[in-house]
């Protein structure tokens, strides 16, 4: 559900203290800032009144007091270390006393409905990246943003292309929900990054359990959810502008959002992002032709009728051009051999450039969605969703005869999705949800590439029904659910053997999935969650039909029309402990068996072509086992010093051949120590609030489970990176900014990452300094 607010603030106007003042501007506004979950007073929270430019911090009892404020409209913002910045709009008529609750909690499992009506969700362990964190690193793409979540790693092809891998699953096996709609494009490609602007999102979360059955697509496991928040009720137009510059790639990012929500009126929010960066740099040399350009927009509209009908509309456009390292484009195995030997990639130049030439990708993704929600009563509601997506992907190679400007691959995909969902709560502690979905995909190769299509034209009709039943009482919550899917595909392709003879295939796949979960609150401080899920996945179109040479992979890829459905059994167990003051701990372990796991296997055949010999890879099936552990802990050493530790590892085995599965990350340990200056610092007329200094370190172990014979080169060595960041809210005169400086790879270390597909050719990124500032109005 996209209409989710993650309860941050509950505002209670307790009482009006004294009688109305005589003068316009002698009103007193006082209040207390409290932690929502514990009720504890929050000292050193910064309260700012935009109209008067007055800003103060709360005292040790969480108390603040403004004197001589004017009556009428008033915009107040409250910041506290570790919390999201909160804005309030108040109508002040007399002296006022406020009690403001801020939510400090990082881990949110339950959703709140837009109207505050409670909706049970499938029990899931989730990790969340908050809006402030997204905006504090707005230079990062969605994939790179996600990396801060333990258990999430990123498959890269240089700086611009980042694709998340969660619990060892990616591509066709990972569902990404953009605004409640399953992202539909060419997810199969290892170098196809998700076409989503993270800056539109107020929240990015990863549901890490055994899988959610509410969504079409793969139900094998993790679901990645990107969603904007609802538009807050506030009569005036407000917005923010966020600009940042990063030194590595000399990139500029500007993002702006503007919104308004008047009572009983149409609420709207407009979001715009523009990005431009040039050649990124390793510790020693430029990576030529690795620039990125992006231009995105999103419009969100919300309207409610008679308290029972809610309609929201969302449309977005994402457009990007991404350069791919020139030196990574190779012909055959001989070229690869030379490239592996070379110290620096070929075509490395002394000078920086913003220009993007072939090889490059030009990708657009457009989404339009409408959702209607009707409340029958407080416990029963229905939603209807319809969405349309268009994905246009053009990939350009270096070609002869001036054809570098003609795409070598041009795919156009249309997806339409409709959903009907019914939800009811009954006999006090039961919740039931049932839904029907229909997804239609039309995938076309656009003629004129002068290449045989890598994947065929097809249409796919997919229908699914699901239900979920949850019973919850104070300490125990159970949930069961099931899903049935039926997919019909009609495919038209030219086989390699005779490029002029069209071959048609009709596929029918039926999938059954089931899930059961239990959550138990052992005490106020401890809880555990156990899930068991059975799911299956139909083979992807590339796994069935891809054919031809994959640039950069140096191999001939062959689909396999005999592939069968993958079937998975996953169990996950998580435990969390929170002592309520200075120690939090979360552990999540999972074990997943996937029968008939589809993977690309080197056949051992070397096919002789006019361009030399190429190894032939073919999709086949095996039985796989994934075993993993994510750990996360937050320790408050003192009020000012916090320590955060995260660890994740996946062990993935091919049980038939007794080998490790390739392209799976190894151990990662990240730690960060944060020093928070609680008290605001005044320097002349500038006030620095919530100053936070963070030093972080990550250790990535070598993937030594993969044998040298499974790859072209031995896997890269382990590496450690150190980063530093300083964030603060700056009060300058009447204006308030949030500013940040971050340094990645502080010591400019040369390293190569196993999951970066450029590792055969070049080092990974060197030092990068990002400075940025956000201004809200």
């Amino acid at each position, binding site marked *: 559900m996209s209409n989710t607010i993650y309860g941050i603030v509950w505002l209670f106007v307790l009482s009006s203290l004294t009688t109305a003042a005589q003068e316009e501007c002698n009103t007193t506004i006082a209040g207390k800032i409290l932690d929502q979950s514990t009720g504890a007073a929050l000292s050193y929270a910064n309260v700012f009144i935009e109209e008067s430019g007055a800003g103060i911090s709360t005292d040790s009892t969480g108390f603040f007091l403004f004197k001589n404020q004017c009556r009428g409209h008033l915009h107040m913002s409250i910041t506290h270390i570790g919390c999201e910045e909160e804005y309030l709009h108040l109508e002040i008529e007399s002296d006022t006393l406020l009690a403001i609750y801020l939510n400090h909690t990082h881990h949110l499992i339950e959703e709140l409905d837009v109207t505050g009506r409670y909706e049970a969700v499938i029990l899931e362990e989730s990790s969340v990246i908050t809006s402030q964190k997204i905006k504090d690193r707005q230079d990062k793409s969605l994939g790179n943003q996600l990396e801060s979540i333990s258990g999430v790693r990123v498959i890269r092809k240089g700086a611009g292309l980042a694709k998340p891998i969660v619990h060892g699953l990616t591509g066709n096996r990972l569902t990404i929900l953009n605004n409640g709609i399953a992202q539909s494009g060419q997810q199969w490609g290892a170098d196809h990054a998700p076409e989503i602007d993270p800056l539109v999102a107020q929240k990015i979360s990863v549901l890490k359990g055994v899988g959610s059955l509410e969504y079409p697509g793969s139900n094998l496991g993790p679901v990645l959810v990107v969603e904007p928040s609802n538009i807050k009720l506030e009569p005036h137009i407000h917005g923010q502008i966020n600009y940042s510059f990063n030194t590595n790639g000399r990139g500029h990012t500007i993002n702006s959002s503007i919104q308004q929500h008047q009572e009983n009126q149409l609420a709207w929010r407009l979001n715009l992002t523009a990005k431009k960066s040039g050649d990124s740099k390793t510790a020693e040399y430029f990576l030529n032709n690795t620039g990125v350009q992006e231009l995105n927009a999103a419009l969100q509209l919300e309207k409610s009728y008679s308290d029972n009908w809610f309609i929201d509309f969302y449309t977005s456009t994402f457009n990007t051009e991404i350069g791919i390292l020139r030196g990574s484009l190779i012909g055959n195995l001989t070229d690869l051999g*030379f490239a592996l030997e*070379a110290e620096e990639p070929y075509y490395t130049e002394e000078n920086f450039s913003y220009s993007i030439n072939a090889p490059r990708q030009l990708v657009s993704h457009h989404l339009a969605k409408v959702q209607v929600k009707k409340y029958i009563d407080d416990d029963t509601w229905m939603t209807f969703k319809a969405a349309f997506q268009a994905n246009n992907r053009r990939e350009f190679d270096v070609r002869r005869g001036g054809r570098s400007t003609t795409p070598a691959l041009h795919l156009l995909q249309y997806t339409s999705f409709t959903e009907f969902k019914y939800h009811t709560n009954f006999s006090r502690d039961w919740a039931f949800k049932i839904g029907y979905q229909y997804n239609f995909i039309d995938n076309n*190769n656009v003629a*004129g590439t002068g*290449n045989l299509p890598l994947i*065929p034209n097809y249409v796919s009709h997919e229908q699914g029904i699901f239900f979920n039943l949850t019973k919850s009482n104070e300490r125990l919550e159970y949930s069961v659910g099931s899903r049935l899917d039926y997919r019909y595909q009609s495919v038209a392709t030219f086989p390699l053997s005779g490029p002029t003879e069209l071959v048609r295939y009709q596929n029918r796949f039926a999938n059954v999935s089931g899930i059961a979960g239990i959550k138990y609150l052992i005490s106020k401080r401890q809880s555990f969650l156990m899930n068991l899920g059975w799911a299956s996945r139909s083979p992807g179109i590339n796994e069935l039909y891809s054919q031809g040479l994959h640039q950069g992979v140096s191999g001939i890829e062959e689909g396999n029309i005999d592939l069968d459905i993958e079937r998975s059994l996953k169990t996950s167990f998580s435990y969390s402990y929170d002592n309520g003051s200075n120690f939090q701990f979360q552990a999540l372990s999972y074990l997943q068996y996937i029968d008939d796991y589809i993977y690309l296997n080197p056949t051992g055949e070397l096919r002789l072509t006019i361009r030399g010999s190429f190894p032939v890879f073919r999709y086949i099936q095996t039985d796989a086992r994934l075993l993993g552990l994510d750990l996360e802990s937050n320790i408050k050493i003192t009020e000012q010093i916090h320590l955060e530790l995260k660890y994740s590892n996946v062990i993935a085995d091919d049980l038939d051949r007794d080998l490790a599965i390739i392209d799976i990350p190894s151990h990662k340990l990240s730690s960060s120590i944060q020093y928070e200056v609680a008290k605001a610092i005044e320097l002349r007329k500038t006030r620095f609030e919530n100053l936070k200094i963070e030093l972080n370190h990550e250790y990535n172990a070598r993937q030594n489970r993969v044998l040298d014979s499974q790859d072209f080169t031995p896997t890269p060595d382990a590496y450690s990176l150190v980063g530093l960041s300083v964030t603060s809210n700056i009060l300058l005169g009447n204006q308030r900014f949030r500013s940040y400086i971050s340094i990645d790879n502080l010591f400019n270390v040369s390293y190569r990452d196993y999951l970066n597909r450029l590792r055969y050719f070049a080092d990974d990124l060197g030092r990068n300094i990002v400075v940025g500032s956000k201004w809200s109005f």
Partner: protein
Amino acid sequence: MKNFIYLSLLACALTFTSCDDDPEVENPEELITTVIATLSGGDTPDVVLRFEDTDGDGGNEATITGGTLAANSSYSLELQFLDESTSDVEDITEEIAEEDDEHQVFLAFGGLNATWTYNDQDGSGNPLGLSTTVTTGDAGTGTLTITLIHEPEKSASGVSEGDITNAGGETDVEVTFPVVIE
């Protein structure tokens, strides 16, 4: 309630669009199916080495025709690249000659006593290799590998002398012929 169902049905109907487009036949414009190396010189008749794979990658296997050269002789080697995938045979050699600064041919003898040098240049005075001179030594049996590189770094060390190691670029053609010197 009724309205809601109508609305749902309408949206469903809109999405049931039937689109059964067939892909258009692509003419792989850059395809090279045939390499012909003609060695001529001295009094002997021309030796023609051929590599043909007219249906492109996959499908039928390529046919390779080797040749026999005379010992201690000098030959001029002329290369021809063709696209014979359709009846309308296209001479790719012209395209390569037009973009001479973006292409370079490299020869390599395997197990043979022979040397070679460039006979032609691109517009900037760097070697091209559509025409080369091959000088044979004593008798032997081995191979000749002909490689056509697209966008090589012609200025890199050794490249203009015919050393492929630092050339970079993409291999457009790499074919190996059995060759006998007698």
